[in-house]
């Protein structure tokens, strides 16, 4: 199975959350990033994500390919949502499927750290007092 990656407008729904199921791969480890209603001790009412889209598409696909270092037969799904989202909505979906649980867990954790380090996506958070700010680094 091929990796599936992309950036799409809006929060991620059931379609993007569905994991890659393959009879050869017995373990699927996953991560969902959910918009949180608090940050730095303050209430958050919404987030807005923007990206450098052509570069982000390439970087996300490359990170997914690189995760094969954990298992050559690894299959990755990686979706990032863009635009405005409210707490409880899903901004990131990662799945890594492997024949064994060890590489699946290691890969999904690595994918998340790489995405947080390399994917050209930025979020602006709006606090419950109406103020907002760009988050740089995470």
């Amino acid at each position, binding site marked *: 199975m091929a990796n599936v990656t992309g950036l799409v407008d809006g929060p991620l729904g059931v379609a993007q959350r569905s994991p890659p199921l393959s009879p050869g791969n017995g373990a699927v480890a996953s991560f969902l990033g959910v918009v949180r209603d608090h940050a730095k001790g303050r209430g958050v009412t919404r987030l807005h994500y923007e990206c450098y889209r052509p*570069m982000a598409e390439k970087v996300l696909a490359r990170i997914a390919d690189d995760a094969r270092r954990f298992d050559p037969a690894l299959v990755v799904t990686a979706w990032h949502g863009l635009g405005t989202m409210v707490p409880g909505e899903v901004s990131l979906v990662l799945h890594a499927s492997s024949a064994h649980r060890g590489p699946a867990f290691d890969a999904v954790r690595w994918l998340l750290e790489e995405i*947080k380090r390399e*994917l*050209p*996506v*930025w*979020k602006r958070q709006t606090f419950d007092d109406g103020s907002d700010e*760009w988050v*740089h680094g995470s």
Partner: protein
Amino acid sequence: MVGVSVLYFAATRDLAGVAEERLDLPAELDHVELRARLAAAHPRLAALLPTCRFAVDEEIVPPGAMRLRDGSCLALIPPVSGG
């Protein structure tokens, strides 16, 4: 000098006041000189520039000298916050 498209994102776009513009830049320059030229064009950007990486034609350029061509696309990449 070559004519380059420069892209600004997130806080760098807010501070530059523009998302994309055309700038004339040397065909070969290092990060120090690039930051100086961008700060001259947009003084409010100065404080953020040391935290930014740069991408040329959608690839991050490593520290040191970089080469630009006419029509190259140079993007400022402030620290990312996806996830």
